[in-house]
């Protein structure tokens, strides 16, 4: 799965998270920070993680979620890493 394809999928998820300002969901890049750039409440990160698991058919380890950074590239990396583990 290409990284851009994952980013596009993440944007689709973010559109369903209503605490995020939807007008900010343009030009999302790997460097976009969920908290600093999108003003995502930190409590909302677990919603994003759970929806990501469903959308990309993966199951994250609890420790990986605990250590997850707040940039788009962090979650892209985690998805790829988890998929590689099988």
């Amino acid at each position, binding site marked *: 799965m290409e990284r851009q394809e994952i980013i596009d999928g993440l944007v689709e998820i973010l559109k*369903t998270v209503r*605490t995020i300002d939807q007008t900010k969901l343009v030009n999302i890049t790997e460097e976009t920070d969920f908290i600093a750039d999108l003003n995502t409440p930190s409590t909302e*990160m*677990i*919603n994003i993680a*759970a*929806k990501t698991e*469903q959308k990309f058919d993966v199951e994250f380890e609890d420790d990986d979620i605990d250590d997850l950074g707040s940039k788009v590239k962090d979650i892209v990396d985690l998805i790829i890493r988890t998929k590689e583990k099988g």
Partner: protein
Amino acid sequence: MVSGGRKVAIVGMGGAFPDCKDLSTFKQKLFNGDSLIRSWDQPIAHEKNIRSTVSGYITEEEMGLEAIYSTILPGYPETYIDHLGRIPDSNLSTADIGSIWSMLGTQEAIKMAGWSTLETESEQTGVVIGSGGAGNTILRPAWHNFFELKRKSRLAGSHTVDRTMTYRDSANVSCLIKNRGVCESIGSACATGLGNIGYAYRLIKFGLQDRIIAGGVEGTSIETFAGFDAMQVLSKGFAPAQSSRPFDMNRNGFVCSFGCGIVALEAYDIAKARGANILAVIDNYHNNSDGDGNMFFPSFSGQKRLWKGLMNDVHIKPDVVKVHGTSTPVGDAIELLSVVDVMGDKDYQIAAPKSQFGHMLGGAGAVELITALMMLEKQQVLPCLNAEQLNPELEGFQKSADWEGPKQPLAAYRHLLSPQTLDKEINQIVCLNYGFGGTNSAMAISRDH
């Protein structure tokens, strides 16, 4: 012994009401003598597993709302959309349906009160709203996911706590209006609505706050309904409009309903100084407990002490007594006899608005206080529907040797209940509500002279 303190005014109101699109429709239907009770498809879907099928329920669609269900958890309302654009999405995401009604009622009450943004966001502005039950519609699918389906807790997302915690209604309203004063909730079962307003009244009376958004709510929930249905205390066997029949001989239970009542309270002198429209002045509030160790059975002596406390150092001579009047066999009999014992049997009327919309549980006291505000404004007494015949025989407990109350059967007081809306000069109304645990509450309100 309580005395002194500041005078408190009611300057705004709002809420959510069964089968009504807004406050003015609610008022119109009430004074028309309409019933707001309907057959409800949700219990009907459970067929023989549930006894009662009537309710004063409110759908999301009727409130201009829509639940967005989780794609991960079956049946979990992940958030709501406000199709009328009244509540921001971020506030909706932390709210259950009752909290959303509370926010909508608050917007309406503040608009009516005419509070400025500066006043609303002040340290002297509080929020005190309570609910009878938990956030059941959120908890059920979240718990089912974890306990029955054995899936990860995180699939329910991060909002099961804020959407179900005891003071979720106050918390959501406070986050919406950004007040800087008190934010908390009082819980007292079916006295919750009046209890929160009574507590708010005291905070203003004793100078701790200048203005408060106060009220009670019970969000539509089949889970809540099923709990009461299991107790065999809900009305059964009547057409919807005839199901709630306070004081009638054939009453057999209450109608489990849902709704929200919010009022804006303000220190009288401050409200008067800014030229606010005073809907009513609160003369007094009193609450107590039965003290008999009984969770459910109403107490004649507890209610008598309630009146005594309400009348302590305050002129109480109501033209209308707005009773709790649930349509339960014992509750109505004890209440009517305790009112008559204190008030006698003439020169006032009894209003029983649950006959029109059922029992809104944690919302009841607040919505019924709103009906009292409407009675003051319209100078009309709301009817007691379906009280077709009162018991001509003595109640069983009246025959006991230690009974100290009125010795006449309920039918002797038939004239206090009107089957239709009644014109009457109304200067003062006493509102009564009681709850499981033996809690009793009373508030007297008057026209501003």
